[in-house]
């Protein structure tokens, strides 16, 4: 266990040298191969700058280190999924990306977390602005107990994105359309959001997140409370959204990670064990721990 980190680095490094054989179909070929070469290598002003550049990130709760020295690049417009057994730190790591851990007092984050080259944990950085750029969808659908319209309009309102009612209406409609919910709710925008089905609520939460036009959307097990049909709808939505957003999704369902993400990162006891093209991870993972986890050998 203690020797894991160097070996991972070595393995990951070796893996990246080879040309990417697996090409996700939904993405243009050239970018993938090019980006494939940059994974895991130290970044020194690379022209193809990633959305998130995370270096040596550690998170501790009091004396308890939940995240141990993780370095990872999250590329522009990719869907990257974090998988791993319970308590492996994937959710903690996700919540660092828009500083949702701030509200936990004993939580301490160290290392460099750069969003478009800007350190998001520097003291003068405004959390509110960060969260407008990095939206979040939670495990349990959590619409505000207000109308459907107000739920979506809330973000734009507090950020002053719309000057007139008509502009706000437009934002609401666009967001609901993008979330594939418009046709279902356009006649009852004034209805209370909590009266909708679970799947609809979760898509409403996604609409609410995209209403402030974020660049990155973080999803914390977005389908764990949904039935398969609703899950399929949300997954479909994620694939559609990947054209305009960078999406980071934490999931317990390996099948889901396999279905929606371009790359998959496997976390184990606070370490980032392996990050690779999803195609590779689910057919021939490089690390033994990843293999054991995704084939169901973990106790």
């Amino acid at each position, binding site marked *: 266990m203690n020797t894991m980190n160097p070996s991972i680095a070595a393995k990951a490094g070796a893996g990246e040298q080879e040309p990417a054989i697996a090409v996700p179909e939904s993405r243009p070929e050239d970018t993938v191969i090019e980006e494939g070469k940059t994974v895991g290598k130290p970044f020194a002003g690379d022209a193809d700058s990633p959305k998130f550049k995370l270096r040596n990130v550690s998170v501790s709760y009091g004396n308890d280190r939940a995240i141990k020295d993780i370095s990872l690049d999250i590329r522009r417009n990719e869907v990257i999924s974090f998988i791993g057994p319970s308590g492996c730190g994937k959710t903690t790591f996700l919540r660092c990306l828009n500083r949702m851990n701030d509200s936990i*007092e004993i939580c301490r984050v160290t290392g460099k977390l750069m969003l478009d080259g800007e350190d998001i944990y520097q003291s003068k950085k405004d959390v509110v602005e960060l969260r407008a750029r990095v939206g979040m969808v*939670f495990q349990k659908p*959590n619409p505000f107990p207000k109308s459907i319209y107000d739920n979506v309009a809330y973000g734009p309102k507090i950020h002053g994105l719309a000057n007139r009612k008509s502009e706000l209406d437009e934002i609401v409609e666009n967001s609901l359309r993008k979330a594939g919910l418009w046709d279902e709710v356009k006649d009852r925008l004034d209805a209370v959001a909590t009266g909708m089905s679970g799947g609809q609520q979760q898509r409403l939460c996604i609409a609410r997140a995209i209403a*402030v036009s974020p660049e990155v959307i973080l999803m914390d097990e977005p389908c764990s409370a949904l039935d398969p049909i609703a899950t399929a709808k949300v997954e479909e939505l994620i694939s559609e959204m990947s054209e305009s957003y960078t999406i980071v999704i934490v999931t317990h369902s390996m099948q889901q990670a396999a279905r929606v993400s371009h790359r998959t990162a496997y976390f184990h006891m606070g370490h980032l064990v392996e990050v690779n093209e999803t195609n590779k991870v689910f057919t021939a993972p490089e690390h033994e721990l990843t293999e054991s986890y995704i084939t169901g050998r973990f106790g």
Partner: protein
Amino acid sequence: MTDQTQQAERVRRSLKRRYRKESRFRAYGMLAIAIALGALAVLFADIIGKGYAGFLKTTITLEVDLDPEVMYLDDPTDPKQVRMADFVAPLVAAADDALPGATEEDQDALRRLINPYASTELRAALEQNPEWMGTTRTMTFLAHSNVDVYVKHEDDAAYSIKLSEQQQAWVDDLVERGLVDTSFNDVFFTNGDSRDPAKAGVLGAIVGSLLTMIITLLLSFPIGVAAAIYLEEFAPRNKITDFIEVNINNLAAVPSIIFGLLGLAVFINLFGMPRSVPFVGGLVLTLMTLPTIIISSRAAIQSVPPSIREAAEGVGASKMQVVLHHVLPLALPGMMTGSIIGMAQALGETAPLLLIGMVAFIVDPPTGFFDASTVLPVQVFLWAGSPELAFIERASAAIMVLLAFLMSMNALAIWLRKRLERRW
């Protein structure tokens, strides 16, 4: 196979035992409820049984001959003389007329059938209508409080001891002729306190209670809610906040009379505020209700699901926006019910108010926050201690008024919660 059947048999047997235990347990619960309800029923029966009579007044109708001579008036047109005239004499004369059997020696006994304030009323009526002078008018006056209790409790000998047998016979006669009658006691709701039970009312106490409650509400709700919000949302978790929390919880358990002492020492002695006024009463009750409101408000804030908070933070709401837009609206019903229950407690509070002098005998309803006044529970306390039988039933009636107030406040709390409560 046999193992399984044996097991099933064992389960079945234990099931029976469990069912028995369960029904016994349920019976205990029902017994407890029955005891509580029974106690409540006894209380209500007692209070209503005693107090309903307080809502009735006894009147006596007399043919008053406003003869200037009887009133010892030389010049009926001189207002000064009229003011000084004897208004008791025409009343006694009228009573004498109404009761043919009465003699000259019975004057005193006759006078004590009529309310002592009747002469004042008569004078006021005459001052308003000077043209009545010299005419005979049929007028209705309050009966004497002794007559009042006698008429209302005919079957109970305890209530007749203040009247002589002759007086009792007269009253019976008058009742038979319909000249002595009982009707709804409007006086009880339009008058302040009085030495004469028949004239005593709760208006002063009601107004005093209302003014006190307004002060309490205006001060304790904002302060309590603000304190709760600060403690829950903004205060760092450390020794100091822990200390504050423990002390708030302790304050809630402090006997209310201590708050009265505090009010006396601080507000009246130190700040030199006037005694017996609703403002100071409100301040003292604010101190008393604050812990309750803070505790219930904090509970209400804690019950707001963290997912809502996270959702708001997730779209980039600042701390203040999270609190104002989401936490507060969701917690408000809980805060309000907590506050109203705290207020209801304050409404029924006597001890601290006794110490700041709100126990004085005050006839006129207060007109402002700095007017000497009393409050309902203190009024009850005062009347309950009075020796007159008529005051006892007034006290019960006042308790009923107080209970009505409390119930309507609780009803308001329930309504507010139903109205504002949202499911999530």
